[in-house]
């Protein structure tokens, strides 16, 4: 049964809750529309860790070659890209 976008969003949010940068508490502020970089919750290395986590969950490689950063930095944008790549 393929993972739905909503399920993946939940997974990502839970991952960020446990792995966000020190001092940037996401309690209450973390939603599918959160920009993970602009909010300061993840730095570039944390973001890469998140991608690796999503890839390990989905078993597919995420291709960011032609994706605008303003899309892949948002929780739901990143999840959509991840699932799109799995469908292709």
């Amino acid at each position: 049964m393929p993972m739905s976008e909503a399920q993946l969003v939940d997974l990502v949010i839970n991952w960020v809750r446990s792995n966000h940068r020190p001092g940037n508490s996401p309690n209450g502020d973390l939603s599918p529309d959160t920009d993970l970089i602009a909010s300061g919750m993840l730095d570039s290395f944390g973001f890469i860790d998140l991608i690796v986590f999503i890839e390990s969950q989905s078993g597919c490689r995420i291709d960011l070659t032609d994706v605008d950063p303003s899309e892949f930095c948002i929780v739901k944008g990143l999840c959509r890209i991840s699932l799109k790549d799995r469908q292709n």
Partner: protein
Amino acid sequence: MFEFVETPIRPLQQSEQLSRGTVSQQHAARPVLATPTSRKYNGLIQGFLESAERFPCRDALVVDNTNFSYRGLRDRAAAIAQTILDQESDSFPLAAVLASRSATAYASVLGILGAGRGYVPLNPKFPVERTRKMLILSGCRVLVAGREALGQLRRLLSEIDWALTVILPDLTDAAELRAGLPKHRFVSSQEMLQGESFSFKTEVNSSAIAYLLFTSGTTGEPKGVPIHHSNVRPYIQYTSSRYEVNERDRFSQQFDLTFDLSVHDMFVCWERGACLFCVPEKSVMLPAKFIRDCELTMWFSVPSVAALLSKMHLLQPHCFPSLRFSLFCGEPLAAAHARQWQEAAPDSAVENLYGPTETTIAISHYRWNPSKSPPECLNGIVPIGSVFPGQQFRIVHHEGSRSGAVGELCLAGPQVTDGYWNNPEATRRQFVRFPETGETSWYRTGDLVKRGETGGLQYLGRIDQQVKIRGYRVELQEIEVVLRKASGAEQVAVVPCPVADGGVDGLVAFLCGASDPDDLHILNRCRQALPDYMVPRNIYRLEEMPLNDNGKIDRKKLLRQLEGA
């Protein structure tokens, strides 16, 4: 080329006086303190102004998809310069700019230089407490603030004791700020002069400061590094020739202004009429699409960017066909990433640059050669190569070591500054003379190097606790000072972790006897005083700190504990 450069360079730009302070007996060196002389010199802004004359309608800058011509950018800078001179008649040599990745940021740098002052870049992304510290240490009377910094002005300025003139090119009405902070003088965009007939100050004293940057300091205070026009002009001239920069080039602008590599981006680009493309904040992390979309010809970043792109599978062969030169600086460049980047940008020369802030942007280079370079790499790290022509280096060996062994790299020459800003103690420690080289002032880098078999310099590490995180220089002691205060701990140690491909990805802290039991609270307090890259990722609490035979904290043992965790 790789032997100690014996050719005499021109005398130091400064007259010098000897200090009777600390002398490193190990290096038989004498410390140097300097005072300015008054020889006239072409300022850092000269190249931009010449390009603005030659190419007034060509693009000088692209920010957020908006293009600014050389004429347009010069006019913006003139308005800021004219306003500075109108508001501040005193001759204080510096003015600060608090702006980032905006047209105002670049115009402010040019405007401050055009007013005959050196610029002090402050970073709106840094904690206000740290920015305030830098502003106070600089002593600036003028601050130019961009739109992106308006939200923090109240907190920043409320604890500044002296009256500042704050120029606000992006704010039409400053009444609210004026009412809230009556001590300071605010100049809104509507009150600024237009600068139509402004005459830029291009000729400066050789001792005049072009910019003042702050680096991490071991005592817990940021350390000011003044770079003079006479230091930076030779760099701009050498590199713009070496990279054959022309008006058709398209430069990346990836670094924050508080990072001295941004000076290369701006002024090597503008020296020859090229166009500067400001990398948006969101593309800084993974700029592959930006490089392609903007058809950049010149790339300059820290090696971490290549590492991240590689990890994200974004360094594919031939993916950057427009690049002519790809430069990396600020931290060790892994051979694997140099090779991948070369394959991604087959028409580009890939170079590893090296240089502490004190020696002006970069002072040595190594060009990657796919067939010859791999065996020249040590521990998988690309050599730092040869020192620029006209600059000098020597490797100072520890007593008893043989020639060719590992030693501390010391640098001298026109690019090397003469000391720290209002910090004679640090100056005495790092700027020295050697009996055999007369009056030449040498900067002790603290970097351990050795000569490779083909003569190029190879970087091996540090003699102290300094680390580089994404190119930012970090003194671990500075973090420990903040942590000790934030936690009430008796003993504190910060160690780099994880470390991969010769680069440091993060930091962790060990505390012993901390009065505050809440890690999050401690880290939050750290975030108020330190930029993100200096805040430890995790805190580990110990009953007892491991000590080595000398009774010092055994950092290697701490690292081993982490590896075993």
